[in-house]
C-alpha cells in the first residue's frame, strides 16, 4: 500500500491529512472509500488512532458514521483454503518439469529451421580402444537435456555451475580448466571456484558446467586432466565441474575433436543422443548434432566397437565410416581425413552431395543457406579453406558447379545456372 506522504514524520503526515481532507461531515460511505482511512484501520499506528479519535471527539466526523465505517472495514475476514506443504511442493515440481519440457520443444524448433538433414555423427579414432555403453543410471544425457538453453546465443557462452554465465565475444575462445578449479579464457583467469563444494545452495545443476558454441564460432576447451577439445560451430557440451573418481564423462550435441589424456583407472566417456563412446586415452572426432537424422562414425586408427541405442553393434577398422539412421547400421570404407580436416580450418570432400556441403558451411559460418533439390543432388569433390570468409568460399563453389547464389536479406539462396563449368 502506498502512503500518501512519507510516514517518517507522523505529525507532519497527520497535519497534511487535516489540511488536505477536512473529513468534515464524512459519511461512512465516504470514509470506507478513503485510502488513508482504510490504511489507518488495517494497520493502525498510535498517531493515526489519535488523529481519528480527535476528529470524532471534536465532532468533525460523526461517531456513528465513523464506527459504522470502522466495523465495516475491519470485521470482514475470509476463511482461506490452503494447500498442504506436500501439495505446494508437488505443484512446484510439476511446474518445473513442464518448463523443462517446453524449453526442449522450443530449442528443437529452432534447430529444425536452421539445420536440414545432413551428416550427423562421425567419430574418428587415432589410438587405442573404446567401446559403447548403453544408458546407465541417472545419465549425464538427462542432465544435459534439462540444461538446454532457451535461445541460441550469438556469442560463445560458458555457463558455470554456480549460475554464472560468461559470454566470450572474441572470435576464438580458448578455455582452460586448471587443476585447482580455476578457469582461464584466452589465458585470462575468469573464475576460481574452489568454494564450490562449500556452497550450501548447490543443486545437481551446480555440479555441471556447459559450453555453448553458436553457429559461426569455434572454441577449444582443456579439462583439468589435460584432455583437450576442439569444438566446432553449433555445438553444446555439458561436463561435470569435477570429473568423478571412476570415470570422466561428458555430453556432446554437435561436433568436437578430442585429445584424451590417458588414464587407465578413469575411462573417458563421450555421450551423445544416440550412442555412448568409451575411451581410455586417445584422439578422436565426434560429430553428433542431436537434431540431425543420420549419425555417423569415422575411425582413423585403432579399433572401435559401436553400440547404438537400438542395441545394434559393429566392429570398425580404420577408415571405416558407419552411418546410423535410427534403424540400420551401414559400414563403408572412406578417407578418414575428409572428416577431420575441419580442425585445421579445411573442408575436404570427395563426391559429396552439394546439399551436405552447403549445410556444413551454413553451420560453420552461422549463415542461413537455402537451395532446391536440383542443387542439393549435385556431387562435388575438392577442398575449401574455411579461414576464408563465406562469400569467397561460396564463390569458389560457384566456379566448380553450375550454380549461383544471391543474398535475400539475411539468407543466401542458391540456384542452378547454365554457365559452363571449370574443371576443379
Amino acid at each position, binding site marked *: 500500500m502506498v502512503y500518501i506522504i512519507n510516514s517518517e514524520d507522523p505529525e507532519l503526515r497527520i497535519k497534511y491529512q487535516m489540511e488536505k481532507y477536512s473529513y468534515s461531515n464524512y459519511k461512512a460511505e465516504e470514509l*470506507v472509500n478513503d485510502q488513508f482511512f482504510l490504511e489507518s484501520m488495517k494497520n493502525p499506528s498510535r498517531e493515526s488512532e489519535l488523529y481519528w479519535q480527535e476528529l470524532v471527539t471534536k465532532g468533525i466526523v460523526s461517531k456513528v458514521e465513523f464506527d459504522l465505517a*470502522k466495523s465495516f472495514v475491519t470485521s*470482514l475476514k*475470509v*476463511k482461506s483454503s490452503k*494447500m498442504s506443504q506436500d501439495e505446494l511442493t508437488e*505443484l512446484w515440481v510439476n511446474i518445473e518439469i513442464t518448463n523443462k519440457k517446453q524449453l526442449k520443444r522450443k530449442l528443437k524448433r529452432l534447430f529444425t529451421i536452421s539445420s536440414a538433414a545432413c551428416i550427423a555423427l562421425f567419430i574418428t579414432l587415432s589410438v587405442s580402444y573404446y567401446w559403447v555403453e548403453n544408458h546407465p543410471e541417472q545419465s549425464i544425457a538427462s542432465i544435459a537435456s534439462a540444461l538446454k538453453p532457451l535461445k541460441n546465443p550469438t556469442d560463445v557462452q560458458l555457463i558455470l555451475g554456480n549460475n554464472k554465465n560468461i559470454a566470450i565475444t572474441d572470435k576464438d575462445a580458448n578455455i582452460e580448466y586448471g587443476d585447482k578449479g580455476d578457469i582461464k579464457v584466452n589465458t585470462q583467469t575468469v573464475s576460481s571456484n574452489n568454494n564450490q563444494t562449500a556452497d550450501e545452495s548447490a543443486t545437481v545443476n551446480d555440479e555441471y558446467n556447459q559450453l555453448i558454441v553458436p553457429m559461426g564460432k569455434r572454441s577449444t576447451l582443456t579439462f583439468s586432466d589435460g584432455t583437450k577439445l576442439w569444438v566446432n560451430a553449433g555445438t553444446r557440451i555439458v561436463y561435470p565441474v569435477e570429473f568423478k573418481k571412476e570415470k570422466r564423462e561428458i555430453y556432446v550435441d554437435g561436433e568436437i575433436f578430442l585429445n584424451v589424456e590417458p588414464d587407465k583407472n578413469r575411462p573417458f566417456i563421450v555421450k551423445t543422443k544416440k550412442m555412448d563412446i568409451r575411451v581410455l586415452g586417445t584422439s578422436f572426432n565426434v560429430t553428433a548434432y542431436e537434431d540431425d537424422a543420420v549419425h555417423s562414425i569415422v575411425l582413423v586408427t585403432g579399433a572401435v566397437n559401436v553400440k547404438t541405442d537400438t542395441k545394434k553393434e559393429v566392429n570398425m577398422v580404420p577408415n571405416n565410416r558407419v552411418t546410423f539412421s535410427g534403424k540400420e547400421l551401414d559400414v563403408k570404407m572412406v578417407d578418414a581425413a575428409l572428416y577431420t580436416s575441419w580442425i585445421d580450418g579445411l573442408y575436404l570432400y570427395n563426391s559429396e552431395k552439394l546439399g551436405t556441403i552447403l549445410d556444413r558451411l551454413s553451420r560453420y559460418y552461422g549463415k542461413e543457406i537455402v537451395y532446391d533439390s536440383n542443387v542439393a543432388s549435385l556431387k562435388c569433390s575438392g577442398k575449401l579453406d574455411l579461414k576464408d570468409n563465406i562469400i569467397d568460399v561460396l564463390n569458389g563453389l560457384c566456379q566448380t558447379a553450375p550454380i549461383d547464389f544471391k543474398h535475400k536479406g539475411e539468407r543466401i539462396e542458391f540456384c542452378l545456372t547454365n554457365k559452363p563449368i571449370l574443371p576443379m
Partner: protein
Amino acid sequence: MGDEKAYASIYEEYAQLMFSFGMRFTTNRELVKDCIHDVFVKIYSNRSNLNTTTNIKFYLFVALKNELINVFRKNISFCSIDSTESLLTVDYITEDNLIDKEEAQERNQKVIEILKILSPRQKEVLYYRYIEELSFEEIEQLMHINYQSIQNLIQRSIKKVRDTFPDFVTISLLPFLLKV
C-alpha cells in the same frame, strides 16, 4: 539464470495466496492447482516479454482468474455459472481476538446477517478492496467494471447495512470504543 531464483521466490510467496483466491471460484482443489500450474508455466515461457509490474499479487490474481474462467468456459460442468453473477463467494468470519467475547459473538452474528443481504458482486468488491487491499484501478481490471461502479457497489453495501440494521452501530461497536 538469476531469473530462476526470482521465479522460485514468486512461487514461494504467492502460490498459497493464489490458491486461496482460486478456491473462491470453485471447490475443485485440483482444478485450482492445475490453473496455478498453467499460470506459472506461461510466466516462465514468456519471461523475456513480461512487463515489469508493480503489483505482482494483482498480476497473478488476474492471470489465475482468466485461467479459471477459460476452463469454466470449456467445461461448463465444473461449476454452475450465472454469467451475470459474480463467481466469487466470500464467507466472512470475524476476528477472534476481540476483548469481549460476548460482544464479539453478537457482533459476529450481525456481520454475517449483513453480509447475507449483499449481492455476490458487492461481496466481491468488498473482498478485493478490504481483504486483498487492491487499488480501485486493479479492481476495475479484475472485475471489468469502472471506478464509479466500484464506488457505487461499496456505497450501496453500506447503505443497505444502514437501512436494514439501523441499530447495527450501537450494538456492534462497543469493542472498538473499549479499544480506543
